[in-house]
């Protein structure tokens, strides 16, 4: 599919900004990347490929994303950590009145206190992006990860 250069740039800039916000653990900004009615999920490839819907994190609206942030900030207890996103191979796969569909690979590294950096989660983003008040926002974001296992716990969104 021939993609206008400006659109390709806009999508890549959006994903770069998204990664920067998560890498800085600026969680309060994270829901702002999504539309009011949205779907965000982190789902193993094993389930996604078979059409099975069970995800390890599932938010069905911006409100639920905000609730997740409140839980991370106020109620969950976890070891301090740094996360680092590498997003590449950004491809626009379709454009319709429902939005722009985008696929991209991601690798997320985790650094715990007194530990070497390790690969935390690798997979692909399957996104549907729409224009909302002049800004590009995620109407859907499926984080489909390749591994069957997640090391220990997944605190921050991907």
């Amino acid at each position, binding site marked *: 599919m021939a993609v206008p250069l400006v659109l390709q740039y806009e999508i890549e800039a959006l994903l770069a900004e998204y990664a920067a916000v998560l890498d800085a653990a600026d969680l309060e900004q994270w829901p702002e990347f999504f539309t009011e009615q949205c779907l965000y999920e982190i789902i193993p490839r094993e389930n996604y490929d078979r059409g099975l819907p069970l995800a*390890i*994190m*599932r938010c069905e609206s911006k409100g*639920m994303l905000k609730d997740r942030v*409140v839980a991370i900030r106020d109620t969950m207890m976890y070891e301090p950590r740094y996360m680092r996103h590498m997003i590449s191979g950004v491809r626009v796969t379709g454009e319709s009145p429902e939005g722009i569909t985008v696929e991209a690979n991601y690798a997320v590294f985790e650094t715990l206190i007194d530990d070497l950096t390790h690969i935390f989660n690798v997979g692909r983003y399957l996104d549907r992006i729409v224009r909302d008040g002049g800004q590009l926002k995620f109407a859907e974001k499926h984080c489909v990860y390749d591994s069957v296992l997640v090391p*220990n*716990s997944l*605190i921050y969104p991907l």
Partner: protein
Amino acid sequence: MVSELSQDFVHQPIQGCGPMVATFAQIVDLLRCPDDAEPLRYASGDLLCPRCARRFSIYEEDLAEILPSRPHALPRTVSPQYRNAYIEAFEQNYRDDETSLAWGAEESVSQTWALKRLRQANLMGPAGLVSADDSEVMKLSQDGISPYADATGVIEMGGRDIEDTEHMVTEVAIRAFYRHYREVMGF
């Protein structure tokens, strides 16, 4: 002994349990402040602790559906297929060198009910709102005890009794479970 327990389970509904909690207001009644165990109140979009004034924001009441519901006996309307699958999943006999955990039985249900189950999955697993902390604590505990492979360590949380408490920050339930387990197994 195992088959005796099995018969009890199949034929007697769990005593003293109400229907599943349905509304947000009913769920709020079950919640306590994690700091001081005071019952939380719903006030202008937040959950509020009247004692320490700590606020927990709630943006989307849908998320509350994943909060605990009371255990309940299988209703009479449950299909025989589900009842059989449930009993088969939870009522297996195991050898003493096996470990297995039943999570549920296959359900044939409406889209709405399936969605509820998908939301409930936010509670458990590596990103679970309830279980992620457990994984973290167990990792820290393991880091702490693994240098002492030849020693025996005991970590206690809140004593040894099985008295009722007004909050859920307690290991009473698990102590009571193992007390009963020891009796049943004759340990």
